[in-house]
């Protein structure tokens, strides 16, 4: 399928932007806990974070497939900003008739076990419960949460993190993952809305998983690129190590796993908005397959790099620490594999082939 011209141009310009601005100094600084405001500003100016929204809501009616492709680029350059979260927060907010923010946003819950309950309080609402490990919560302009309302799922949009108690945390890539606790917190009437448009907690969790899988596929491309480049430059025993067959084969496997990861994420993206069962299956497949690829690929990329890859100074760790973090977020690959297995078994062996080949 030929890639559309607009998509190609968007990706080229976003690639340039991240290449220029999501550099190691910026990432290192962000990892100390300072928000990467310049990088965020540059990305926000492109309109990409809210581009999926309808034009009436300040968006550009952009294709989700294009936005996910941008997430792959963001993952490739380890961009330390809540881009996926802001895209998804805007999507949830719009589905509940809530105002998104122009600034960075976070979205949740991101963990399957969390519980958030909204009850009526006159014209307003009261929110209780916990949203654990929300990406970048301590840095955002708005927090958008899917909650259990009296008549089903609703969304709330809080300025900053509202009146939540915040417990800071981070993943092993030093990206903020903050836990918000709400103890009967008052929510204004216009900050809560009923969800429509097929958006639900489960749908958010799936899109979050697909976003992570896509970002991981970009990080894998980066790890492969670093590995291939390094192997051609590093000389041992009188020749570049890329001339040794053992190293070539490690890189070949790394390239294969990377290609499979990019493909699996793209197949998930391609299924968005099509048949619901197929979308669910292919997103679960994507997070499962990309997670497995990441585990193997990190090992190989480090093996090719030797000791230098194990240093803070060299860039490989920016990608591998994110891969080790992201593979666990929005459900790990073993957890999603259970979902794939259960779906297939519930469908029955006789329907397995039909399920795999459904258009």
């Amino acid at each position: 399928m030929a890639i559309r011209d607009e998509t190609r141009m968007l990706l080229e310009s976003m690639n340039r932007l991240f290449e220029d601005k999501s550099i190691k100094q910026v990432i290192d600084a962000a990892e100390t806990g300072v928000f990467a405001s310049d990088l965020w500003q540059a990305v926000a100016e492109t309109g990409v974070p809210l581009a999926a929204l309808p034009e009436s809501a300040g968006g550009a009616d952009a294709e989700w497939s294009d936005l996910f492709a941008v997430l792959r680029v963001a993952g490739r350059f380890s961009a330390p900003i809540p881009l996926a979260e802001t895209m998804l927060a805007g999507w949830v907010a719009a589905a509940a008739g809530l105002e998104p923010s122009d600034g960075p946003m976070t979205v949740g819950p991101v963990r399957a076990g969390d519980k958030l309950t909204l009850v009526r309080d006159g014209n307003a609402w009261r929110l209780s419960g916990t949203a654990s490990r929300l990406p970048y919560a301590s840095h955002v302009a708005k927090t958008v949460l899917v909650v259990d309302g009296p008549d089903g799922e609703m969304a709330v949009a809080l300025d900053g993190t509202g009146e939540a108690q915040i417990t800071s945390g981070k993943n092993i890539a030093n990206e903020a993952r903050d836990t918000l606790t709400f103890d009967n917190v008052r929510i204004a009437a216009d900050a809560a809305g009923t969800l429509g448009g097929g958006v639900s907690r489960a749908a958010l969790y799936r899109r979050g998983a697909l976003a992570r899988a896509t970002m991981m596929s970009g990080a894998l491309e980066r790890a492969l690129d670093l590995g291939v480049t390094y192997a051609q430059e590093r000389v041992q025993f009188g020749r570049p190590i890329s001339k040794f067959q053992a190293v070539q084969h490690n890189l070949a496997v790394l390239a294969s796993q990377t290609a499979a990861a990019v493909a699996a994420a793209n197949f998930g993206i391609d299924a968005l908005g099509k048949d619901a069962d197929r979308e669910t299956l292919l997103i679960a497949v994507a997070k499962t397959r990309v997670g497995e690829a990441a585990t193997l690929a990190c090992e190989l990329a480090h093996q090719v790099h030797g000791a230098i890859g194990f240093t803070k100074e060299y860039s490989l760790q920016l990608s591998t620490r994110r891969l080790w973090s992201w593979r666990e977020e929005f459900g790990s690959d073993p957890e999603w594999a259970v979902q794939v297995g259960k779906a297939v078994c519930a469908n029955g062996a006789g329907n397995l082939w039909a399920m795999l080949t459904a258009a």
Partner: protein
Amino acid sequence: MATPMFRFDPVELPPEAIALRHEVRDFIAEHQHLMGLARSEFNRDFSRAMGKKGWIGMTWPKQYGGHERSAFERYVMIEEMLAAGAPLSAHYIGDRQSGPNILRFGTEEQKQFFCPKIAAGELTFCIGMSEPNSGSDLAGTRTRAVKVDGGYRINGSKLWTSNAHRSDYAILFCKMASDGKEEVDRHGGATQFLLDLKTPGIEIRPVINLLGEHHFNEIFLTDVFVPDWLLLGKEGNGWNQVTSELAFERSAPDRFLVLFQMLREMVRMAGPDPDKATAAALGKLISHLATLRGMSLSIAGMLQEGLSPNNESAIVKDLGTRYEQDIPVVARQLFPTEPELEAIDAYVSLIARSTMNAPRFSIQGGTREILRGIIARGLGLR
């Protein structure tokens, strides 16, 4: 990024391919008694029936017995047949690589003579590449052809030739004799012939595989005369031609669907509500399969656009054989049994068969090491 990235973009099947899928499923249902891993995979009647349906040489020009259908239609037909365990061996090589190679390099006379017969399921081809001392290293081939009046005289031997004992022709890879001169170019003089296996001077001996089955053969050629008109392509162009033939060989979805029935049997045994560990193990395999299938479909898209996705094919084959070799390993962890080839229980027999067959997956059609060398070259490392 400077490093080449191998891309597998999603493709959408055209409506005619989706319609064909239903037609193929009906055909498979009619021939259900011939389907299954444990049954003979070589069945000329079945191949003729497929020829009548127009499912051999699907993408070839009509003037040579083909049907001018898309690479997607061909893909759908093949994946349905493979998943069902259909007996394709009698026409598979001809359809996948011999026919396309003849269409690409053959004379008008050869195209007219061979392709319609292959497409009708009447003519079985085998692959005459490997030799006792030339497996992965095809350039080391020793079989020699000498130009004689009206044709060529060929001496040498071929090994690991699957189905030679029940094939009509082989595409023989050999070298022109160099009159005792030292060979400088290891690829020089390579030449392909369309070899009629009934020609005097050919002896075919079985090589029994570790399952106790007869698929492999050794072919001995003693002063075999091949007439001029059966030279394929040009003298000395064999290296190019065989590279193209191998690309056809590696682009098919048969590298990850051989054990599909085994996987299906595992899903059946897991039941509708499996425990977590079982669901996870099956889910992981399914994730591989779904991704491999999408990648393979993407390759069909590249073929349809006239590209030569050699690196991508090597990747799918390497990943596909790994996945298939994992199937019996996962099976024995989830559902332990003592394997027995002739067992009445389908699973017990399948695990025996797949365990013993597994080693060949990463050897035939290019070993794992050769494929990784191709991928490394694609990365610019060689």
